[in-house]
């Protein structure tokens, strides 16, 4: 079973406004994109389970065919840069996706 980083060309996360982090997983070709899109590894439910968050914290989840990309956005526990928040840009939140098994 391949890892997500073996199929994707870009795996990233970043602030989307001050209270959300958005994740972009972009594939180099349609085959790997469709495999992940339809295989469920990054479905709304799978992502909620991975980060152990309530599904309501995922505010947007789209398959963006034109860019061969899957994109989802989650609410932060507290706004970016609040005391106690280490990742002000949200740019390392994608870490757990890198070695994700893709069926």
């Amino acid at each position, binding site marked *: 079973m391949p890892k997500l980083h073996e199929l994707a060309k870009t795996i990233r996360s970043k602030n989307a406004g*001050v209270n959300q982090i958005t994740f972009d997983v972009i594939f180099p070709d349609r085959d790997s994109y469709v495999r992940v899109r339809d295989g469920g590894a990054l479905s709304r439910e799978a992502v909620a389970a991975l980060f152990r968050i309530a599904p309501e914290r995922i505010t947007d989840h789209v398959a963006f065919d034109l860019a061969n990309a899957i*994109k989802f956005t989650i609410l932060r526990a507290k706004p970016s840069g609040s005391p106690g928040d280490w990742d002000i840009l949200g740019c390392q939140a994608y870490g*757990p996706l890198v070695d994700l098994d893709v069926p």
Partner: protein
Amino acid sequence: MTDDPRDMQRMTSDAPRRSLRIMISTGHLGTAPSGAESFAAGMATNPDYLVADGGSSDPGPVYLGDNRVLGQFVEEELELFLTASRARGIPLIIGSAGDAGSNHGVDETVRMLRAIAERHRIPRFRIGWFYSEVPADAIAARIAGGERMPGLGGFPDLTAEEARAATRIVAVAGVHPFIRLLDMGADVIVGGRCGDIAITAAPCIRAGFPEALAYHMGKMIECASLVAEPFMGKETIIGTITDDDILLTPFHPGQRVTVASAAGHSMYERETPFFERTLGGLLDMRECRYTEEGRSCRISGARFVPEDPLTVKLEGARKVGERYMGIVGVRDPHVIRNLDAAIAWCRGAVARQFGGVEHELHVHVFGRNGVLGDLEPCSGPPPHEVCLVVEGLAATDTLAHKLTDFAVRMFFLARIPGSKGSSGLAATTKETMRSSPGFVWNVNHTMRIADPMELFPVHVDDAGI
């Protein structure tokens, strides 16, 4: 259309249609110098405007709350942009000056530009600027009068109390103050807080190009070379708008703007790849079409849905306290296995010692979940060493220092049942360090306005010699 000769009809190589070319070399003014070679190559083509985004809400609330500037190369970049643009008579537009777009950020940027102009003996030109701050009391009064200000990104409606608690509030401008300042003859514009896309869209809309394409071009080139591939920061891109489409061209010889890189960038840093909100309406990118032309990418199909009534986004930061940080290393495997007990020991001691003092204490455990916090799914076997960063906040510098230093010391003095160590259970660094004051975003809301200019007073003056 406009009577400004800079905006008059231009001929492109393939078709006789009018166009306007906007150059950008950085997604964030002053974080690092713009790539010199692609900047020079772009300027050599005589673009119609040079634009730069001075900041955003991205780096956190302290920049707005405490009037701080993130970039260490702001002056160098302003010097390059001002001298190069004035030498060719190209207008320069800077948005969200000073990172947060506060009045202080605008004033400081104008001051720096004036000083650079004098130093370089730049012939007299017109400098324009606008402010974006909104008095908290004015917002609180409107809420007290029954007006609802809905929260964005999961924030509840704004209360008058929360508005008053903000140290500083800015409204996010659209294209309007930039267009007004261009109309007033400004050659150089320093904007307060504004949407990233406004600095590019404003001259395009003023010149009569379709709003949808103007905003979309603003969106696509807002981070300069991040729209191209391979990944490079701070390299020049020129966006060319016509009445039918936009064309994105990279000026670093190693970069291309591809369908994949452009479409990929359209989703960067936003909740959805399909929509972008700005003061005045909603940009709809669902039907966009992309085609590659050499190293460039041509895009069409964006739509713009005007908004009525108008709403403006407000951003505000509230101070929590002064802040210190201390670093603690643990190598004793027994302590690492019982780390929660050590943290509880520290927290208990702090609660007893500082119980009567308002404070916050955060312990970041690197090696466990220091980066992701509650989002960390991994719970592997304990590592052989961990790093704890202790973050303490209190009302005064003295108290925050005392609190944080005490908390660090409590890891050293922690008593963990079964530990064989009796000479200190944590390795500490030399001194507890002062950090930036702690702020939180407490205003992230929208407010109705009747006129898109009403919160953004404009000023124009002479600069240079």
